[in-house]
């Protein structure tokens, strides 16, 4: 590779660690995150063992599903010229310099090397410690993957991203064919599983047998890679040997093809567009919607609502108008999931005896509320208000400004709570009072966690690093929720009204405490500056 690019890669690597040394809290947060990442297989060990998948065959099953349903579709995104990280600095310094376009592309791909390596090491650990694969077997698998899998994936990336011979129409056809084949295969697999289950009960062996069948192992490239996996884990068969041979040959062949392929920089325009999207997403510092994260632009609807309210209250009305512009009927598809969940809970209680007992309605609803409040981050709409420095010039208290900036979030929580609680309550035939209690507690608990998150993740996080702050926020959230959880243990011995009152008062106290603490720290623009 070009010497300057090698220098850039080396320096970036060194600077990354130098930056971490200057920010020890961020370094600690990253270390905790990496440790958590490597512990994921162990977190799932219990479930894997209970399901009887802690074997070589179980490893093959999970790796095969990952390859077919994650790796393959993700690789296809290279056709759309997405999936390669180009930043504005790369456009300015590399693409605008006399560097070979192919080497520039390989440089951009090399940024993912560490993540890929970490993932392969994680698989090694999972194989040895969870799936009881012998250490030597796992090491051989890892080393061969590091060489051949990486050669294959990078050469595919270069070919699919930068090829100037495959036309757009051909790319679209390739994608369609792959998705159709995948869909057909999935239908076939599901049919097999369902019919075998109905005949003689569920067993993962059916799925493993299908995924290890010659039909799958002969799928070009990805199937051949699975052939190698099956060979090393389950032993040799003629099909597996052929598939493995084809895997090695395709890795070498495609690498050679990518090496010889002419790349004149046709992809530069797409790289520029991608870098602009990245810059926009980075400027929002993680406060992005799902559609934005996938590179789609937000669609807006015409809505001619009038502004109402005075002082900080006008913020809420403005957000309401914005919401009506982005969601035609105020609610989005994600809000209706709560309705589906509520109906699902009710129907499960009706048709699945003993699984969901109506006597425990309040406990179930409060338990769900706690889960939703702790594990689902609040929307960042309040933050976008505080990013506009004119908000700080408005003569009203920071508490009013923060409360009104987050009021729409509480309104949406209320609507979602109705969607979740009312159908479940009606189907479970609980009293109206219990339904009202459940809705109120859902809103209060979520509002409480909103301000906890604002104080710790947004305000304190701006000073100590968001990764570390997220971990602290999670810990604090769990501690705060001990109160309501303990209260739930007394629902069978004390009156529901007493439990409801206790949890409500607790939630209101904590809510206002964190609202107050957040607002006094939102005096000026420095509060959210990193």
């Amino acid at each position, binding site marked *: 590779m070009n010497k300057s690019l090698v220098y850039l890669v080396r320096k970036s690597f060194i600077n990354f660690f130098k930056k971490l040394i200057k920010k020890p809290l961020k370094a600690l947060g990253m270390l905790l995150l990496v440790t958590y990442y490597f512990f994921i297989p162990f977190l799932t060990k219990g479930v894997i063992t209970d399901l009887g998948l802690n074997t070589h065959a179980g490893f093959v099953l999970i790796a095969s599903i990952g390859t077919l349903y994650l790796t393959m579709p993700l690789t296809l995104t290279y056709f759309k010229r997405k999936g390669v990280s180009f930043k504005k600095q790369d456009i300015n310094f590399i693409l605008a310099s006399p560097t070979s376009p192919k080497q520039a592309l390989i440089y951009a791909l090399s940024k993912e090397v560490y993540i890929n390596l970490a993932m392969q090491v994680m698989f090694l650990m999972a194989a040895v410690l969870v799936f009881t694969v012998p250490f030597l077997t796992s090491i051989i698998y890892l080393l061969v993957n590091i060489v051949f899998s990486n050669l294959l994936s990078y050469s595919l990336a270069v070919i699919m991203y930068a090829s100037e011979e495959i036309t757009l129409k051909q790319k679209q056809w390739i994608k369609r064919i792959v998705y159709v084949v995948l869909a057909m295969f999935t239908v076939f697999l599901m049919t097999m599983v369902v019919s075998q289950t109905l005949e003689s009960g569920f067993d993962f062996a059916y799925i493993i047998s299908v995924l290890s069948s010659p039909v799958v192992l002969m799928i070009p490239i990805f199937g051949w890679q699975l052939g190698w996996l099956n060979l090393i884990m389950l032993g040799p068969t003629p099909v597996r040997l052929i598939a493995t041979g084809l895997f090695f040959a395709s890795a070498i062949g495609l690498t050679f093809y990518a090496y010889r392929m002419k790349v004149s920089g046709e992809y530069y325009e797409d790289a520029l567009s991608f870098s602009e999207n990245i810059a926009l997403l980075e400027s929002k510092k993680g406060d992005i919607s799902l559609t934005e994260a996938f590179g789609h632009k937000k669609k807006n609807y015409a809505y001619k609502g009038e502004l109402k309210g005075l002082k900080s209250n006008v913020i809420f009305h403005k957000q309401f108008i914005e919401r009506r512009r982005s969601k035609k009927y105020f609610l989005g598809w994600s809000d209706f999931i709560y309705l589906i969940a509520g109906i699902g809970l009710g129907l499960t209680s009706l048709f699945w005896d003993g699984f969901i007992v109506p006597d425990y309605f309040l406990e179930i609803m409060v338990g769900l509320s706690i889960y939703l409040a702790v594990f689902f981050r609040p929307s960042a709409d309040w933050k976008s208000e505080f990013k506009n*420095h*004119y908000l700080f010039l408005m003569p009203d208290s920071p508490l009013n400004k923060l409360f009104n900036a987050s009021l729409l979030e509480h309104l949406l929580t209320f609507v979602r709570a109705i969607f979740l609680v009312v159908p479940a309550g009606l189907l479970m035939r609980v009293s109206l009072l219990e339904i009202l209690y459940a809705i109120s507690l859902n809103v209060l608990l979520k509002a409480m966690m909103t301000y906890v998150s604002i104080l710790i993740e947004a305000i304190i996080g701006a000073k100590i690093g968001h990764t570390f702050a997220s971990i602290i926020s999670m810990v604090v959230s769990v501690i705060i929720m001990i109160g309501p959880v303990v209260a739930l243990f007394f629902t069978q011995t004390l009156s529901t009204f007493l439990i409801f009152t206790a949890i409500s008062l607790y939630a209101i106290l904590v809510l206002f405490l964190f609202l107050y603490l957040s607002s006094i720290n939102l005096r000026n623009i420095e509060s959210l500056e990193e």
Partner: protein
Amino acid sequence: MTTTIAIDKVGKTINRKEIIKDLSLTINEGEVLGLLGPNGAGKTTLIRMIVGLIDITEGQISVCGHDVENEHRDALGNIGAIVENPEMYPFFSGQKNLDYFARMHNGVSKEKIAELVDFVNLTDRINDKVKDYSLGMKQRLGIAQALMNDPKVLILDEPTNGLDPAGMQELRRHIRMLAKEKNVTVIVSSHLLSEIELMCDRIAIIKKGELIAVENVRDEAKQVYHFKVSEPEKAQVLLQEQFDIISQLLEDYLVVELPAELSDVSSLVKAFVNNGIAIYSVEPKNHSLEDRFLHLTAE
């Protein structure tokens, strides 16, 4: 004269770097002050401290008698400001943006908003979405927004950005009117020295976070002459001893600033001649604001 803004030994440190050092300044009612300085001098930081957008590390700032930190809301109630680029909501029309800001201030009438729209010449485009506005139009809308609450103090950071000459003239005229007729105190930060010269009463020059000069814009009391003489060093000593004038020797001529008590340059000429110093030329120089600024901010 009533002091509207009192900046008392103010300092600002960010990441252990002193951005503003021990800065003291008072601005009076009805005065238009120009804030000048090279890029990175600390002008915007000072403005941000005055309006309370950032904390003050040391010292105190009060606006209309209210401490900006401890009586923030009372101080803010007297301020209208454009700090950096006006941040409007792009999907709202200009009218709706003004309506939004008007509601924030609790009591700005529709007539007042219409008056401001007319003043900034946006009547024809006020119902268009702000995302379709040019930079100049957004700037004018920002000025309307800053004037909405009839502030006693108007702070404008680079207000002429994006304005055409007619727009600049209109803004200048209105600022002078606000200051003279309504006694509004105006602070204008700009790089356009010609505009500052026309708009302001006084200038405050900041360099590397320190206030290095506060001067009247039209300082007619000072006149500058360039003398080309046979013995410049002797002439310098003579000027100091006889007239208490400290002159500057630049290349081959003396730069002499006449003090107020000397009505013309003839007494200097006479003194040189009487002391045997030959005079080759005497040239009056208009010491423009740009000259003064560059002289004061030179390294």
